[in-house]
């Protein structure tokens, strides 16, 4: 061995120590408590900012004696990192979004929940009871919390005829006035549109794309690029684009619609005829939680209509529990309808909830493209 290669080997060894070892284990197996016992007095949660407001956390602490220590995370990646920090037992619960939940499940960081201990689960919207982003092999690794669709938003002053299809954001007549999220998952929106527009591609699930299907979606997005004013990264970006007249049509969350309407901008949104993608958050219990009883008490508490409504209004999203409708209207008249919680079942069927693209398709074949592939394709779309 020469000195040079020895030096390289030593560096490689040092590098191996620094890189996360065994970050991906196997999904944890079920270890249900027989019943929810007395609280442990403490509960450590990782949550989105705005998910642990005093309005509903204080009454919970008083009722159960479980002191809630909330750690806010700025991104899904930070959530995953926090749940894995210190060997995994630092935090009990996390409000994981669909882009983090499967990573936590496959990483063995979260454990299955016994929904029998959470009666409100029975009232949940049917497609949020066991959605594929938090349920694996019939085991509930997550309890759905709140969600929102990705809607088609447009300026009614500039576009008189209400668009009915996602084709509008690929339409050259809006050149330089379109905005869509700067997120690889936008490929799923393109795939969703192609499911109807080009059935011969054979796309069944917008999150499970073969190489060819991914290429077709990317080609559509590349054609869209000259029409784009800006790929928005933050909700506030899009609000500003619509306020300042830089964009007149785009993909958005209901939050943007409501904020813009409140600011007096003439906008409308819809779920087009192709359906829409959507995001959904789930509460997930750490595989090494030290406060399981408090965690179950918390999950029961936040599933109640009142807290679901408070959370929904505070953040601008929709509860998983449709019984929250009246409580929402009590806080803000008409809010249940505004956030589409009283929409007919056909509305919810149109929403394809966000999940991480995995190389293994649902049928077990390994023809699908991974999130890494999506990310690379998205980079090439943006240029």
């Amino acid at each position, binding site marked *: 061995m020469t000195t040079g290669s020895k030096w*390289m080997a030593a*560096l*490689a060894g*040092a*590098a*191996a120590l*620094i*890189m*996360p070892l*065994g*970050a*991906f284990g196997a999904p944890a197996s079920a270890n249900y408590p027989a019943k929810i016992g007395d609280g442990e007095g403490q509960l450590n949660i990782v949550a989105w900012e705005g998910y642990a407001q005093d309005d509903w956390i204080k009454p919970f602490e008083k009722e159960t004696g479980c002191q809630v220590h909330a750690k806010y995370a700025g*991104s899904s*990646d930070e959530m995953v990192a926090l749940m894995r920090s210190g060997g995994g037992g630092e935090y009990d619960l996390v409000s994981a979004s669909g882009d983090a939940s499967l*990573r936590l499940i*496959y990483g063995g960081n979260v454990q299955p929940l016994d929904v029998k201990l959470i009666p409100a689960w029975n009232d949940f919207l049917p497609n949020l009871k066991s959605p594929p982003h938090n349920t694996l092999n019939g085991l509930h690794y997550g309890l759905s919390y709140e969600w929102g669709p990705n809607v088609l938003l447009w300026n009614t002053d500039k576009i008189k005829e209400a668009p009915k299809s996602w084709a509008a954001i690929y339409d050259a007549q809006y050149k*330089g006035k379109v905005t869509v999220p*700067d*997120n*690889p998952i936008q490929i799923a929106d393109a795939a969703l549109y192609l499911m109807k527009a080009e059935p011969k591609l054979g796309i069944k699930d917008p999150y499970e794309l073969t190489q060819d299907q991914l290429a077709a979606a990317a080609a559509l997005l590349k054609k869209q*690029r*000259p029409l*784009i*004013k*800006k*790929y928005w*990264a933050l909700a506030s*970006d899009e609000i*500003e*684009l619509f*306020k*300042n*007249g*830089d964009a007149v049509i785009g993909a958005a969350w209901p939050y943007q619609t409501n904020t813009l309407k409140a600011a007096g901008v003439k906008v409308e949104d819809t779920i087009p005829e192709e359906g829409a993608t959507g995001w959904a958050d789930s509460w997930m219990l750490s595989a090494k939680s030290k406060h399981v009883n408090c965690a179950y008490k918390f999950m029961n508490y936040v599933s109640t209509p009142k807290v679901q409504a408070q959370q929904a209004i505070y953040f601008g999203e929709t509860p998983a529990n449709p019984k929250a409708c009246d409580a929402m209207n009590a806080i803000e008249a008409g809010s249940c309808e505004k956030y589409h919680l009283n929409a007919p079942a056909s509305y919810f069927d149109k929403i394809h909830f966000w999940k991480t693209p995995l*190389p*293994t398709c649902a049928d077990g074949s*390994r023809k699908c493209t*991974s*999130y*890494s*592939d999506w*990310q*690379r394709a998205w*980079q*090439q779309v*943006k*240029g």
Partner: protein
Amino acid sequence: MTAAEFGLDGRQGGALRRLSALFWRRPSLALVGLVVPPLAWLVLIYIAALGVLFIAAFWSVDPFTGEIDRTWTLANFEAVVSISTYRTIVFRTILIAAAVTLTDAILAFPVAYFMARIAGRRLRLVLITLVVLPLWSSYLARIYAWRLILAHDGALNWALRAIGLPSLSIGYSNWAMWIVFSYVWLPFMIMPVYAALERIPPSYFEASQDLGARGWRTLVKVVLPLAMPGLIAGSIFTFSLTLGDYITPVLVGGPGSDFIGNVVYSNVGVANNIPFAAAYATVPLVMMALYLWGARRLGAFEVM
């Protein structure tokens, strides 16, 4: 003098004394003691981290498990070179960094010259304060302010319409990035150029005049060569700061405005592809190394 006079207890004083006596007898030991901690910091935290980054660039991510596969491969570097998008992003980053550097040099020189040679003592102080003042406000706040200025219905277009000119559509584009970068890094160019110009002895100007050179000739033949090290030092700041930035492209860029930093960021954060991010991150390292080598050959380090 005894240890008691120092207010130290006997034992500690003894140990300290023995230590200082040792350093007195062996000066080389004192040197080692002084140099080792910062050197260890530099080597372990700084150089070794770069080494790890470079090693990681030769690894890959298993697409099925997401685990890091530590077999040596050149695939990441191949992707950087062969996929045209990644090449475009490198060229865009360098081009805008160079444009920003040139713009700042052109803007900074007259300002710095005025501050160093024309302005009186009090005005000079005011100008220096004004140049440095924006650095005390948040960089983000200043970028957001520019976003409002350049937007479709923003201050710029409002002003253009007020004086009867057609409105511009430069918000969220590479033009916007060029303007904003040139604005935020301008103080980093003005200060070194000012320092270089201030150092020119007044006698040089007199000598130049005595020999018959007019203003322009003095500027080109005397001032510019003497200011060059300051310009190059400033350009190292503006070039490297632009080269490594990834926030401005997110905030004021449009479609097709990603920088090298944005690709690295999305590969680490969104895609969890750390090896590829490491490979791509070596590109600006190489660029900067070449730039510094060039700057050294032009003598920038001798005056810094």
